[in-house]
């Protein structure tokens, strides 16, 4: 890390610390009633209590499960469907119009449909989360496949590579930067929809626990849950960055 990068890192920590300090100050001065706004000290205490004596760990696990399963399902389906659409003109002309109809559909409009079909179940959550999270990956994969350097397809032709080999050795790796960017976007969508589904369907998870805390005016627990959700979003995004830099390491030399 260069010297200026270290300074930027320090500065960003100072800003974050400043926000927490401001929050504490507002809470201490009781500008907002403590019933609604706990200070960071109380939120932190609730967080620790939740993990040591409460059921915060199992709630966290519940949300992570919803998010990861839904995201994984969306990834597999999105990349596979995107590969089919992206590599075949026929598939594109058959499937694309239907997708153009489904894509702008707000996921919130799908939730009642999913509830009617699956009930207030895990299957409903899985369906809604994957439905919402599939789009960034699907579109990124289609785009990535369409943007493969045509010269590489000629190389593949002159090597008489099979269709499967072309997809796995040329098209997929070539589309990988797009696909990974789509997966990162989808991860956020999956987290949002996990929380929404938990709130609406009462499924075990942070979303549900946050809702219950709010209804019981346990503001410290509410904030503990919200902080934890923020931490999930931050850490999963960090993991995606790490995966990207590992998988796309070959691009370091490209300037």
């Amino acid at each position, binding site marked *: 890390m260069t010297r200026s990068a270290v300074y930027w890192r320090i500065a960003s920590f100072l800003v974050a610390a400043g926000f927490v300090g401001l929050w504490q100050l507002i809470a201490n001065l009781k500008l907002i009633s403590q019933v609604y706004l706990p200070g960071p000290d109380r939120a932190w205490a609730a967080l620790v209590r939740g993990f040591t004596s409460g059921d915060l760990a199992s709630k966290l696990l519940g949300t992570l499960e919803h998010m990861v399963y839904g995201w994984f399902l969306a990834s597999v389906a999105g990349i596979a469907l995107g590969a089919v659409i992206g590599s075949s003109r026929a598939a594109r002309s058959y499937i694309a119009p239907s997708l153009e109809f489904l894509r702008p559909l707000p996921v919130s409009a799908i939730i009642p449909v999913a509830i009617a079909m699956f009930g207030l179940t895990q299957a409903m959550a899985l369906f809604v989360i994957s439905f919402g999270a599939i789009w960034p990956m699907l579109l990124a994969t289609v785009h990535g496949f369409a943007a493969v350097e045509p010269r590489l397809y000629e190389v593949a032709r002159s090597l008489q*590579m099979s269709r499967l080999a072309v997809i796995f050795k040329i098209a997929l790796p070539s589309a990988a930067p797009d696909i990974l960017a789509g997966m990162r976007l989808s991860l956020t969508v999956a987290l949002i929809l996990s929380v929404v589904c938990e709130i609406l369907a009462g499924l075990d998870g942070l979303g549900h626990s946050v809702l219950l805390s709010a209804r019981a005016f346990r503001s410290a627990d509410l904030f503990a849950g919200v902080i934890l959700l923020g931490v999930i979003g931050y850490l999963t995004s960090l993991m995606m960055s790490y995966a990207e830099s590992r998988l796309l390491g070959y691009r370091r030399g490209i300037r």
Partner: protein
Amino acid sequence: MALSAVAPKQAAARPQSAQIAFSNVTLILGGKPIVEDLSLAVKPGEFLCVVGASGCGKTTALRLAAALYQPTSGLVQFDGQAMTAPRRDIAIVFQDYGKALLPWRTAAGNVSLALEATGIPAAQRAGRIDALLKKVGLPNHAGKYPAEMSGGMQQRLQIARCLAQDPKALLMDEPFGALDAMTRQGLQDEVLSLVAASSTTVIFVTHDLEEAIYLGDRVIGLLPNPGRIGIELPIDLPRPRDQLTTRENPEFLRLRRELFDFIKASEA
């Protein structure tokens, strides 16, 4: 020493010995004839250079030889068989090496792509890759990605991948056009020695007339709109060729003059 010049080549019957044979090949793209009634025979082991003003269809002719294009009429044959699809024993070296290499694979991985396609068992690949990279002068760069290599190195790498196909014929499309003069001369000599060692047939497209004479057993010049053969020069310069003595040979200078005059006339 009476070399017949400008007379356009007749659509001669293909000699039986030809490895690559064009018989009255016409290609029409978008309603426009790109090459017209092209007949051409390349003997096994021959080094044929194709020159011509830009837009004369020399790259198109090469792509026809590779079956990346199918002729509108006429026939392209390889070893007596009609070319209906690209074949692995015909390798193409593209001019834009940066686009023809897989950026996510190392040098070794790029060579491996051809070996994988050929069905070489994984256990044998490493040895073959080492040998091929050594052959093109990249023995210490196996782990580098194309983005970490110079243009000359990337083109060497593409040549190594083409050699991995174990080709009977090598089609080269202005392979050194984007390289600086020193690198280009070095690569010219390397290609000559690689080809001499393996008796591979070569069609080499270039816009550099001296390069064509220096490398070729025969040079054909194409006329534009539509592309057709305008001149054909056998090159009887002694081999092995040498960057200094060959280029100073009076016969080299005479051929150079003839070819320059032809190109000038074709552009007029």
